Every structure is written in structure tokens, then in C-alpha cells.
């Protein structure tokens, strides 16, 4: 699977309170989407288009376990590629079904607005403007399958371990 889209750049140590502020934790999924990056990038959610890609720096998503990855998925972003992704945030990407890749050097290789082509087959990240291709860290097959299936909720539903949403 190859995803192509326009990139939006974020720096190092982007924390979950920025992605999804504490006051929004108990909101509905719809309401949560409206708060993404409101403190550091007000208005951003109105600039993005479905299929856009976030390029992050080191330790993207540090902080809390809140469903911040779900909000990025709900905003219809295609995926996240960062120099490194916080372990808990990566888990939440897998489990909420939002594609994420760790690719050292990616933030230096992109300027905001560059088009990226990202392969989840061989885990490469290509900057369409410069032609440069970077190798990302492979995602273990079982985790990739969960990510691509939309996270663990649909898997648990299929096994009859949770009830369907009402």
C-alpha cells in the first residue's frame, strides 16, 4: 500500500495535550476533532484535506494515553511519519487504526507542503519534490495488520468479545 499526500510539519516532543487538550478528553469524537492542535496551531484543522500526512520530529506524541491518535484518524489524515514516535502514542496508533511509521531523518528531509509517497510494503518514505527516499523502521506484521484493520475495536467485535456500538 502506497499513500501519497501533502505534508504538514511538526517539531520535536509534540505532546498529547497539544494534539488533544485535557478539557476535550471527555468530549465526543466529533467535538475532539475540533480541538486538535488548538493551542499551538489554531485553525490548522480547517487547512488540512483528507489524505494529508503529518511529518513529526523526535518523540512525537509524548504524554498521556488519551485517544489523540483516534482524532488524527478521524480528521482523515493518511498517516504519521516521524523521526521517532513515543511508545504509548505508537500503541494508540496501532490500536485506534491510524497508520504511523518511524523514519529517522524524515523531518530534515521534508519542508512543509512537500508531497510524500509512503510505502507500507517496504516501509520507504519518498519526498516527491526532492526525489529523496528514506528507509523507515518496519512495523511488525501483526501490528501492521491491526493498524490496517482499523485498530483492535473491529477485531474484538469480529471475535464477539465486545458488543457492537449502539
Amino acid at each position, binding site marked *: 500500500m502506497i499513500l501519497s499526500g501533502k505534508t504538514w510539519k511538526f517539531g520535536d*516532543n509534540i*505532546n498529547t*495535550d*497539544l494534539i488533544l*487538550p*485535557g*478539557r476535550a*478528553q*471527555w*468530549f*465526543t*469524537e466529533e467535538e*475532539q476533532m475540533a480541538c486538535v492542535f488548538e*493551542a*499551538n496551531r489554531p485553525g490548522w484543522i480547517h487547512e488540512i484535506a483528507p489524505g494529508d500526512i503529518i511529518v513529526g520530529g*523526535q*518523540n512525537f506524541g*509524548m*504524554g*498521556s*494515553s*488519551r*485517544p489523540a*491518535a483516534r482524532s488524527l484518524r478521524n480528521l482523515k489524515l493518511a498517516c504519521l511519519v516521524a523521526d*521517532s514516535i*513515543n*511508545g*504509548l502514542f*505508537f*500503541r*494508540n496508533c496501532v*490500536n*485506534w487504526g491510524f497508520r504511523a511509521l518511524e523514519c529517522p531523518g524524515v523531518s530534515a528531509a521534508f519542508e512543509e507542503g512537500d508531497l510524500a509517497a509512503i510505502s507500507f510494503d517496504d516501509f520507504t518514505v519518498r519526498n516527491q519534490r526532492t526525489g529523496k527516499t528514506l528507509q523507515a523502521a518496519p512495523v*511488525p506484521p*501483526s*501490528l501492521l495488520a491491526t493498524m490496517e484493520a482499523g*485498530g*483492535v*475495536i473491529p*477485531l*474484538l*467485535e469480529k471475535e*464477539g*468479545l*465486545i*458488543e457492537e*456500538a449502539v
Partner: protein
Amino acid sequence: MPGMTAIEKILARNAGVDRMRPGDLAVVRVGCAVLYDNNLIPSNWRRLTKVFDPDRIVVVFDHRVPAKDVITATAHQTGRDFVRQFGIKRFHDVGPNQGICHVLVADHGYAIPGEVLVCGDSHTCSAGVFNCAARGTGSPDMLYAAAKGETWFRVGGTVRYELEGELQDDVSTKDVFLHIADTYGDHATMNVEYGGPALATLSINARRTLSTMSAELSAEFATFEPDDVMLDYVRERNPGLEFEPQYPDADASYADVRTVDLYAIEPQVALPDSVLNNSKPVGAVAGTRIDQAFIGSCANGTLDDLAVAAKVLKGRRVADSVRLIVTPGSQNIYRDALRAGHIETLMDAGAVVTNSTCGACGGGNLGILAPGETCITASTRNFKGRMGSAEARIYMASPATVAASAVEGAIADPREVLARTPGGAAS
């Protein structure tokens, strides 16, 4: 082949394999799954049809207790239904056994050495003090773990902290943590292992401040080497239970080994927005005016923390310009502090002592900051906007430093405040 670190051994044991190395994916059985109220809000929760073992599930309401609004109340109702549905006994509803999940896990002995504990909150590494592979996960993770009794971890390298020496008076493990975070920055994708001769000088509460705060290093796991103090603590709370603590191999392979001399550490203050590479000795920021001071959270709501605050505030007054909010880590701790006289001391000094909850720590149900305000907090996190307005400034320090600052109305060195006779001149 080199040996394994403590966390590698715990993960290997629970994955049913001989070895675990950095880069591996560990699929492990879960010893204890702790669900808390954020997992139970309508947008996160799905009704389970099965749980793997009701006796290995803990349910806690802590982030917003008593319920602050209809959504919270609904989440609590969902939790009560879930507990009834599966006959879960380890349940901490609003009431006498209420408290913050990580505090309750410690105080009730739910974390077992050598086992895996997962909870939907990011400070779950707290239970690493019990030589447990404890990690914060997300809400869908918790549904998975509760249903299947299984979870996964990516295994990273381990940094070992060798603690030596003894803390000076009025310096705490919070200061040690801030020093480590300032010196070494984040530990993303890595594990942290704490050990060394100084361990014996630190209480379980003091150790737990270190393990809990390790979430702020972005560490995957924070694991303490087992010792008798810890093992006795666990046995006392789990009479007759057999368990297998995991000691690091003598030839374990570490990404780095760093020695920290506790004696050399002075009270530290983290500047607003982050604890990573962002602290100063208290003297460098002393005099900064504050509007609010907070002592509480899963890292600093223990009886020891309340005792330290009471020691600083005894016979003194909170400055008129400051709101001092103190939130015990559990209602049990609250009662113990009441019996010990700490609560009276704190309230006489002008502190507001709240019921046990996460409260001001997460900017949730109380103690919210206005734009332009400054707070000094003995809690876990000082991210921008964490405690209310994104235009508020949050400094972080130990309970002693926070209490001293509340007295002065500005950031202050607890040693200097304590050196003065209450109400008057220097002693």
C-alpha cells in the same frame, strides 16, 4: 550471549520464551489489568461479553470524582455495571476506598513482582517499583487486555540508574527525578532500571515517585531491582502468594549505566512546559511570584508527601495571594494523614484539602488556572495548558518546595523557610 536486564527477564517469562532482546516484539500474558474512569466514557467504552479473569481486573474511578458532570456520571455508571456483570471485587468506587489508580495499585498490593500490569493511564510505570512490567496503554488496549488477558510490547534497550549516597534533609526523590530528566532528557523507546546501594535508604513511597515520574522520560518501562523492603511490602498485602521477582543478570547488557549520587542533589524546579532538560536548582528561580500551589497526584499524594507539606506549613501561613491545594492520593491516605494531624496543620495554615482525585493534576475537575497565572506543582506534568489555560505557567518541584513557595508567595527554597522560626526571625 550477554545476560538480560530485569525488564527483559520479566517480559521473557510472561511471553513463555527464554530470551528477550531489544527489537523483539513481546506478546505476554497479563497479570493485572486496571481500568479507570477515562476508559469508561461513552466514546471509549464497549460492553465486553467476556473477561479473562475477574480477579485480575481492577476498576478505579479517579480522574473526576465525585462525578463532575453527566458524562462523568455516565462513565461511572458504566463502570458499576461492568463490575456487577463480571463480579469484579477489586473495585474502587467513590467512597472510602476511592483514590488515584496508581496509588491504589501500590497501597493494595495489586502489582506482583515478575508479572505484567497494564492500565489505560500513562503513569502506570509507577508499579515498576514492584519489579513488575507495568505500562500505560490506551483504551482499546484495555478492552483487549481485559477480554483476552494478553498484550504486546516492543522491547527497547535499557538504561540503568545506579543510585548511591543518601539524600540530604528536605531533598526528595522528586528532586532526583528532575535532576535525571534535566541531565539526560527523554528516554523514548528505552526502559529505565533503578538499582544500587541507595535503594535501601528509600521508602516504597519515595521510590514510587521515581517510577511514576519516569512516564515523563517517555520511558517504556521503569523497573526497580527487587529488595527485601519491596518483597516484604508485597507479601504483607498478598499473604501466601507465590511469585518470582526478576533480578537483572550480572552480565546484563545495558544501553548505558549512569551513577547518581543522591547526596549531591539540591532541590530542583522544572521551568514551565516540560521537565526534559528544563530544570534549575531552586535558588535560580527563587522569588518568582505564584498564584497557585498544588501538592497531589499519583506521584506526590502519599502520606510521606503530606507529612513533608505539614512539616513546612506547621505554624506558618499560606501567603494571602496564593491558593494552596492539597489532594491526598487516596481516601485511606487522607484518613491516615487526618489521624497523624497533618490535615489539621495544613488547613490551619490555609491550605484547601480536597477529596482524593486526580483533580488539579490533569486540569480536570478542580483547581483550574486562568490565563497569565503561575502555579508551582508537586504533581506529574507541566505541559502547556495541562492545568487549565494555555497561557498559565506551571513550574514543578517537590512537595517541600511547593509548600515553602506557598508560604512565601513566590518560589522558595524549603531549607531556607524551615531554617526560620515560624512567624518570625531566623532561628
